[in-house]
């Protein structure tokens, strides 16, 4: 049986940063279902926030102000101690990434360039053109190569082994060989990313199924704040490829079909740079009230960059321009971009504290699959890349401290039992015929989109719940076309689908219970924030009947008393 002191699942920014922090002292293995540089982190465009004060307009910025903006942006649901830690660390990790070779864009004085982003009082988003995720992920992968981290690419984790409150390791399907491999580990860390693909329209990579979150949950680790789903205001119609917030940070405008810069009616102070939850609701309202444009791919609003001029667009947003030309045949230098809001980010996730420690002994999580919580009810742009690297680093420190007295020996027996279970599951899935996985996936995506979207109501959420329970029922009859196990993507999709259904169940139930509107969670039947009843995190555990059981946890408030969130 393969054995590591520490097993890291996820080759995105979070997983790589954790591995780099631990590999000198421990026997570390890093597993990823794709080559690490294919992870979703590669796609991040806009940048990451740190109060470096490099921008002439940000000389009196500070990590304290970054902390406040983040807490206000979270609609006061973030844990304030954790936000403080993140914003303080931000400055250190940006310099560290730079020292490791990250090619940030530069100001004329040779310092790291910073641009404005939504919901921030100062321009503090550090970037590299519009490929910030690409340069960060490459830099961390390069560091991992330099340090000789043991990486298992195209290994797909099929199950997490938790017995009696302790984590023992995972069971993996080696995609190239098609073999099931049990892996034993003293500590298992998940940096498995978000669940965007449970929604039909999402900016996320196709691999962002949230299977890690679902796996942890089914194995017994609780999830937190799952009802908080971020919808990004500007995705390209059709493919839903992201048009980064930097488009607006650099000065882009939003127009409805009356030629009106409609944000002035909603948030005249911040205009296009109001936080994402607010801008998304404004756009959706414009579309719902008939002020959108019609297109066979859907109704849209215009994102207009033309007034920025060709030079600025080519310098600051070249990738955006290429995407528009390649994917919709529009050159933003000459024409406005047709955009719509869609699912973008998972605020909720595996319940961990500011050390990335979960409730399960030996199991840690960080990055988008986790919920510390530093984003609360709404994440600010540029805070997620930050979270991945900061908490990848802090998780490594915490694990190092926790293992200072020696690495616990994980038990083989529970892992072998899990392997047998997975073996049975795969055999059942590869029996011929019956329900095809893609149909269930498509119906799940549609119902999440229509009924668990930007605007929510009790009635629609109840309908969504009913549909979901029906889909779970039908999942029992899913079968794939071929029993081959190597590079059988239909099989891995079917395995992930089980976890997608579980994740969706927790989102819907959380949204149904939370009878208030806070950040990204907007109930048209409870339109205001209700701190008296709902200033608390929801915790979802899998009940014995398979449905989530929800309990609550207090929000950590240190310096900033909740006030109305106005921009």
């Amino acid at each position, binding site marked *: 049986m393969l054995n590591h002191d520490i097993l890291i699942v996820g080759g995105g920014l979070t997983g790589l940063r954790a591995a780099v922090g631990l590999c000198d002292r421990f026997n570390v293995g890093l597993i990823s279902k794709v080559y690490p*540089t294919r992870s*979703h982190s590669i796609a991040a465009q806009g940048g990451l926030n740190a109060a470096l004060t490099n921008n002439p307009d940000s000389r009196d910025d500070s990590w304290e102000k970054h902390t406040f903006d983040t807490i206000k942006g979270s609609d006061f649901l973030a844990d304030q101690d954790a936000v403080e830690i993140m914003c303080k660390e931000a400055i250190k990790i940006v310099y560290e990434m730079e020292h490791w070779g990250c090619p940030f864009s530069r100001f004329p004085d040779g310092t790291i360039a910073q641009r404005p982003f939504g919901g921030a009082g100062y321009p503090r988003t550090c970037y590299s053109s519009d490929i910030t995720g690409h340069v960060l992920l490459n830099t961390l992968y390069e560091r991992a190569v330099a340090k000789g981290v043991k990486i298992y690419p195209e290994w797909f984790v099929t199950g997490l082994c938790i017995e009696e409150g302790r984590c023992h390791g995972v069971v993996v399907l080696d995609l190239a060989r098609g073999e099931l491999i049990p892996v034993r580990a003293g500590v298992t860390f998940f940096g498995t990313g978000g669940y965007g693909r449970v929604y039909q329209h999402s900016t996320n990579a196709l691999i962002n199924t949230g299977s890690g979150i679902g796996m942890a949950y089914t194995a017994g680790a609780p999830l937190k704040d799952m009802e908080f789903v971020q919808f990004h205001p500007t995705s390209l119609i059709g493919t839903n490829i992201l048009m980064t917030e930097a488009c607006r940070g650099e000065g882009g405008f939003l127009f409805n079909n009356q030629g009106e810069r409609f944000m002035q009616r909603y948030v005249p102070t911040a205009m296009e740079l109001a936080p994402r939850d607010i801008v998304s609701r404004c756009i959706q309202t414009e579309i719902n009230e008939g002020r959108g444009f019609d297109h066979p791919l859907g109704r849209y609003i215009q994102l207009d960059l033309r007034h920025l001029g060709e030079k600025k667009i080519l310098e600051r947003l070249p990738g955006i321009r290429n995407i528009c030309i390649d994917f919709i045949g529009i050159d933003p230098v000459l024409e406005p971009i047709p955009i719509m809001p869609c699912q973008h980010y998972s605020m909720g996730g595996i319940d961990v504290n500011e050390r990335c420690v979960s409730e399960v002994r030996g199991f840690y999580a960080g990055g988008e699959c986790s919920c510390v919580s530093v984003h609360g009810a709404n994440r600010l742009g540029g805070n997620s890349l930050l979270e991945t690297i900061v908490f990848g680093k802090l998780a490594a420190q915490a694990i190092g401290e926790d293992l200072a007295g020696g690495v616990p020996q994980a038990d083989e027996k529970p892992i072998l039992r899990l392997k047998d279970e997975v073996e049975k599951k795969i055999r059942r899935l590869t029996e011929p015929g019956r329900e095809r996985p893609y149909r269930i996936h498509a119906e799940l995506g549609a119902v999440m989109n229509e009924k668990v979207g930007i605007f929510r109501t009790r009635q629609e959420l109840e309908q969504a719940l009913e549909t979901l329970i029906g889909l779970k029922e039908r999942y029992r009859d899913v079968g794939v*076309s071929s029993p081959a196990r190597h590079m059988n993507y239909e099989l891995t999709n079917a395995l992930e689908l089980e976890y997608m259904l579980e994740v969706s169940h927790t989102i819907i139930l959380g949204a149904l219970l939370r009878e208030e509107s806070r950040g990204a969670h907007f109930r048209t039947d409870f339109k205001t924030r209700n701190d008296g009843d709902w200033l608390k995190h929801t915790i979802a555990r899998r009940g014995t009947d398979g449905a989530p059981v929800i309990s609550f946890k207090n929000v950590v408030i240190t310096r900033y008393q909740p006030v109305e969130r106005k921009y």
Partner: protein
Amino acid sequence: MIRESAYTFKILRYDAKEPGSGARFSTYRIRVIPGLTVLSVLIRIRDEIDGTLAFRSSCRSAVCGSCAMVINGKIDLACRTQVAAFDTDTIILEPLPNFEVIRDLVVDMTPFWEMYEKIQPYLIRKSPDPEKEIPQSEEDRKRIDQFVNCILCACCYGACPVLAKEPGYLGPAAAAKLERFALDSRDERSAATLEIVNNEKGVWGCDTLFRCIDACPKDVRPTDAVVGLRKSLVKNRFRKMFGKANHEA
């Protein structure tokens, strides 16, 4: 309204686990709206027609480098190629050349990554790190721009005629990565670290016929890297000959 048109997809199938069955084309007819990408049609074929079809994908937006293949004779990313981009309604898909096939359009990328690792693809510093950032001028940052853009998709590797004959050859992507660091104003690698490519399997093996440049979906020019590395190597040799020992490349 956008109307659907019928397309014929011919896809080369092979399974390294069943070499006996050999390679063969499967043909799929499918109605799609133009404007759809080759990748989205592949997904529909796997979902709706043939669940056994194997291909890689992740970002679907030409940034992750997963989906390089041969599309009607041209190497490109499936996710950024529109089905309507060709003068024909038949689209032929084959796996990336210069690699062993694992299954269908999925090739074994191991040699590509091995070469990547060999050239020390990371910033090497000798000076202590400053408290803040290592300063870099906008100009110096621009010099590495095209090489920074590489998404490690291996389109160039599949197109390289030298690799077709000499599998041990450095290849365009690794050359581009090495030059990305050699050109970085912050990098302090010694002249000796370039020696690894100072041979016929390295930069001197390149025919400089630019196939890699044509194939690159990200406008990287690996041949520029090859030429740049050759110049540095020649310069280093002269330095050595005239006794001006200099460790900085």
